[in-house]
């Protein structure tokens, strides 16, 4: 299992669009993808799970990947957490 913490920099946080893109990317991997903010841990392959974290600009979120191609998943999905999306 690998994990790393990222800071959200998208100005309006993780609403529909960033969530859609993240979940789409996460579901391409067979490994487990979890996201943790504070004491809350959700399935990173569920857009509702991700939305329920309420990630806002400046929030720190930990990405946990476990399984097949986890290194690649950590790199790709981590970059999506600290990314600015088109509005």
């Amino acid at each position, binding site marked *: 299992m690998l994990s790393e913490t990222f800071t959200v*920099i998208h*100005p309006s946080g993780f*609403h*529909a669009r960033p969530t859609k893109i993240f979940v789409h990317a996460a579901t391409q991997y067979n490994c487990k993808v979890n996201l943790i903010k504070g004491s809350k841990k959700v399935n990173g392959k569920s*857009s509702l*799970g991700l939305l329920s974290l*309420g990630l*806002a600009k*400046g929030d720190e979120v930990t990405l946990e990947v476990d399984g097949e191609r986890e290194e690649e998943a950590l790199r790709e999905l981590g970059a999506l957490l600290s990314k*600015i999306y088109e509005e």
Partner: protein
Amino acid sequence: MSQPLTGIAASPGIAIAKAFRYAHAAIEAPQRAEVADCAAEAERFRSAVARAKTEIEAIRESTERRLGAAKAEIFEAHVMLLEDPDLVDAVLEQIENESANAEYALHEVTGMIVEMLRGMDSEMLRERAADVLDVSGRVMSHLLGRPYAALSGITEETVVVAQDLTPSDTAQLDMDYVRGFVTEIGSRTSHSAIMARSLELPAIVGAGKAAAGIPHGATIVLDAIEGRIVVDPSEAELAQYRTKKEAYDRRTAELKQLAKEPSISADGVHVELAANIGGVEDVAKALENGADGVGLFRTEFLYMGRSSLPTEEEQYETYRHVLDKMNGKRVVIRTLDIGGDKELPYLSLPKESNPFLGLRAVRFCLSREDVFRTQLRALLRASTAGKLNIMFPMIAVAAELRQAKAILAEERAKLEREGVPVAGDIEVGIMIEIPAAALNADYLAKEVDFFSIGTNDLIQYTMAADRMNDSVSYLYQPYHPSILRLVRMVIQAARREGKWTGMCGEMAGDLTAIPLLLGLGLGEFSMSASSVLPARELVKRLSRAEWERFADEALQLGTQEEVKQFVEQRSHA
């Protein structure tokens, strides 16, 4: 009879048309039933989900065709919701483990998700509840064998009146006939409000229960500038609102036209009218208002509102995004200007008794090279995405500038050794906000590509008057000859070296100051985005040659009042 209603003006404009009432069929909470064949029930649910998906996919395609890919994207998110384990698997579990009927299970799970989303801090996330209700309602309609409501059959000019409009409703509005809409609930960040703004469709949201009383077919005036709705307007009111609508539409069209035009004075002098931004979120507004570039990107906002320094990667992402969005237009990025009235608690800097005269801006950066180098590396790496200018704030003496430039050169060399591409044409300039720098501008001009005059600080330091202190606010005098002479000195010094001068304080967007500044030879004016179009309108009417003479005269005067009066007289002559 007129009965004015009010709501939130979510998308500006005025519409006068007949009300078209639109409602989703009320779905009563389904009864819990025990199903005998759980597998069959699960299958029934899966097939309803599949049909809903097919419909949403069709809406996505037609939206993309009519309104473009960006507006259709929301429906990709909807399809994704119908694949979400937290929704679909949760419903299937209730069916399979608890023998619940599909309608009941869907209703329960939807309710839980909606409640969770509505409890979120962010309004943007609370709005996602509307997406869940939209897709879930569509699946429910298939389970019940009823058609999901659709906004069709509008054949005349209409203002749609609804309790709420779902994303799929809004995407299906027939723009040939719909002139605006009113909803009982919603906010400025509702999907429907965002959509209305991008379609430039007047809209009032959150009008409350009172909007439910608007009768179908009644003539209504939708004043989405003031947030007022007039039902059955009198002849006098109709005439009044028609005039108002005409004036608004004309002005909107004028400004839209102006946004596309270059910034040229009546006698053919090109200037740059740029926007000040504090982050990525301000770029769209700068572009909408036709800014010729970004004259000041205040990067301190990247460092504020968080608990640690932003990483190089985060900064790179931000700068690259801004440069890319500005599409080749000049972007002046100011390096970290912290200290003074802006603190970063996580740096735990010692308290100073005179923070405005203390370790701020470039002084701080030179004392914390690690922080400075991270920012410069991020800037250099982003430089290939557009036209980057780097600006150091609060330079007082040449040694500071040289030190900052040396560090920049070192970071550039390191990146080049690492094989990272860096643009070759990055202009490097300084802010002129300390009188010592203004007085020494002819010397500094040899070592920079440009100056940008920060009037707010220049005035405070020249007058020795704290701009946060109300009791000395009378000394904030942008038109005082002492300030104007410093401005002229800076512009002339730059010009002698073939460099350009901009201004990024309040004064640059001040319609009274602009003629004078143009006359003094200022080349770039950076202001809040909303000031750009009025400034362009003004510049187009001004003759620089004429204002050169007026500026010479104005600078002979002795007080701010005399200068102001002089400028106003000449402006209206």
